[in-house]
């Protein structure tokens, strides 16, 4: 939006030149801050690529992408990334199947239905869910959720993706709920009032007016939640087990990319060995996965953004 000052007054408004200059300086500072994000990504990509180059000299790209076993630390090493990718995706899907419905439901409830007092108490309490250290969640999944699930599903192994996924889902509910709720509250009241005036109930208003109006914010909340689920480390490392396993069945144990990375970087491997360098290759794959679906989400939100 262009700054508009009446042309005839341009020179005579006191301090305008100073204010314009100050604005320019501030704008570049703000741009600098925004570029921090870009530099961080570049730095991460740089580190990942540089450290995985020796890995890819040793392992062919085709083996990496198509082999079905990931055992880089064994004597007869196999370097197929698919088991780790499958582990990541299954845990994320389980997590999302909990977080998205629950989070959205809670957001709608808090924004449209809950009395003001209740909202001010519940919202912070929900945010606390996201504050529990991930290590605590990991042990919660292992020691409480798994035995509980083992009663429901006999034969469930001690390490499985279902427990880990469910707990991650619970953990990201605040992301989805809080940010969505902020987006919904941003929908101006006159839109709700218009809907009520037509005789709609609160539920209809919520689903047909508020949610569509806040869709871009809700989508942003979803994307944030998804990214968080994909990048979760400790919960899966503790509760899903550390054996790579190419399966789509969430009741089996499996390793995710993140669990593998944490296991190796804190372990006993010498840092210049190929087993260690495999974590950077795995990290690179993870970044690409997140990138692909951030771009997808981004194009979607652009389309839905509403102006009011």
């Amino acid at each position, binding site marked *: *939006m262009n*700054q508009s000052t009446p042309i005839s007054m341009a020179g005579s*408004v006191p301090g305008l030149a100073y204010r314009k200059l*100050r*604005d320019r300086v501030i*704008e570049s500072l*703000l*741009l600098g*801050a*925004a*570029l921090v994000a*870009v530099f*961080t*990504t570049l730095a*991460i990509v740089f*580190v*990942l690529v540089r450290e995985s180059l020796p890995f890819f000299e040793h392992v062919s790209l085709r083996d990496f992408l198509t082999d079905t076993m990931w055992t880089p630390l064994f004597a007869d090493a196999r370097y197929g990334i698919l088991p780790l990718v499958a582990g990541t995706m299954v845990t994320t899907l389980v997590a999302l199947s909990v977080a998205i419905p*629950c989070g959205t439901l809670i957001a*709608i*409830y*808090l924004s449209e*239905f809950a009395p003001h007092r209740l909202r001010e108490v519940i919202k*912070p*309490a*929900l*945010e*606390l869910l996201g*504050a*529990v*250290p991930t*290590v*605590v969640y990991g042990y*919660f999944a292992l020691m*409480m959720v798994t035995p509980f699930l083992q009663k429901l599903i006999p034969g469930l192994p001690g390490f499985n993706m279902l427990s880990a996924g469910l707990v991650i889902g619970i953990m990201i509910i*605040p992301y989805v709920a*809080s*940010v969505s709720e*902020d*987006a919904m509250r*941003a929908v101006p*009241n006159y839109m709700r009032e218009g809907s009520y005036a037509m005789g*709609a109930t609160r*539920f209809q208003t919520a689903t047909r007016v508020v949610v569509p109006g806040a869709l871009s914010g809700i989508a*942003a909340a979803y*994307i*944030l939640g*998804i990214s968080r689920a994909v*990048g979760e*480390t*400790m919960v899966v490392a503790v509760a899903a087990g550390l054996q790579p396993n190419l399966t789509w069945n969430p009741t089996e144990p499996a390793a995710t990319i*993140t669990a593998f*990375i*944490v296991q190796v970087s*804190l372990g006993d491997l010498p840092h210049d060995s190929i087993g260690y360098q495999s974590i950077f290759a795995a*990290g690179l794959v*993870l*970044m690409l996965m997140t990138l692909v679906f*951030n771009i997808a*989400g981004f194009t979607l939100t652009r389309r839905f953004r509403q102006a*009011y």
Partner: protein
Amino acid sequence: MGAVTAQASIEQIRADVSRRKIFDKLFVVVGMLVMFSALLVLAVLFIDLVQKGAPRLNLEFLTQFPSRKPERAGILSAWVGTSLIMLTTAAITMPIGVAAAIYLEEYAPKNWFTAIIEINVTNLAGVPSIIYGLLALGLFVYQFNLGQTILTAGLTLSLLILPIVIVATRESLRAVPRPIREAAYALGATRWEVTAHHVLPYSMGGILTGMIIGLSRAIGETAPLITIGALSFIAFLPQSPITAEFPFLSFAWLKDAFTAMPIQMFNWVSRPDPEFQVNAAAAGAILLGMTLLMNGIAIWLRYRYRKRINW
């Protein structure tokens, strides 16, 4: 004829509305159920930690250093370390995150360059925390030679939570209605004046939401801190920020070695001695308590800001 159809329609409408009101009530029930189930999980977790850690939840635990004897091992260095790190992280993330969000929301033109920045931001939210640790090791510890210090820890965690703060801040900036901006422009304000005087004050609430969620995440992180060299045994505290001589405020603590609460927990929970499990549970309960306190302050601030909004 008009009257007859009008009559029938009114009854139809009434029936319709009462039917939909049932959905309404149903939704309230479902909503509350889901919400309280989620909170129930939190309660179960917290109660479990407090129960298991009860024997060690006393003042000595908070004032003792780590030790090999579980009954002597305390979290003094850990909670001091965590508090100082959180302070640093907040001080770094707040300006950068808010500035970046302001740029993206108020200033950036809608071109491919901006799109790249935006995609970058959300992408960073998905990078696993351990990668930030590895990045920080190479960049901050070695390249910039900042060493394994509280400052490095603060920088690492800031990068980690930056995307959360930026996204949440953007949403809250977007929530300020356009007419407010337009009115300010119409009176001759420059873009910065519009943003700082009119948009920011109203969006403070959402910004604080982002900071709360971000700091809550940062306080529980273990892996990146271990990677940059957080210690597991340190029986002395970083230097005090308040000193006896002028200028009474010192930043030397930024350069000190440190440990943090989640690391202490993680260390204790993997020890063979079952008594350490009690310590770990107690540390977990206190960590949740610290987060609650931190959140509480921010929430109170947000509540105060929210009250002013009435559009």
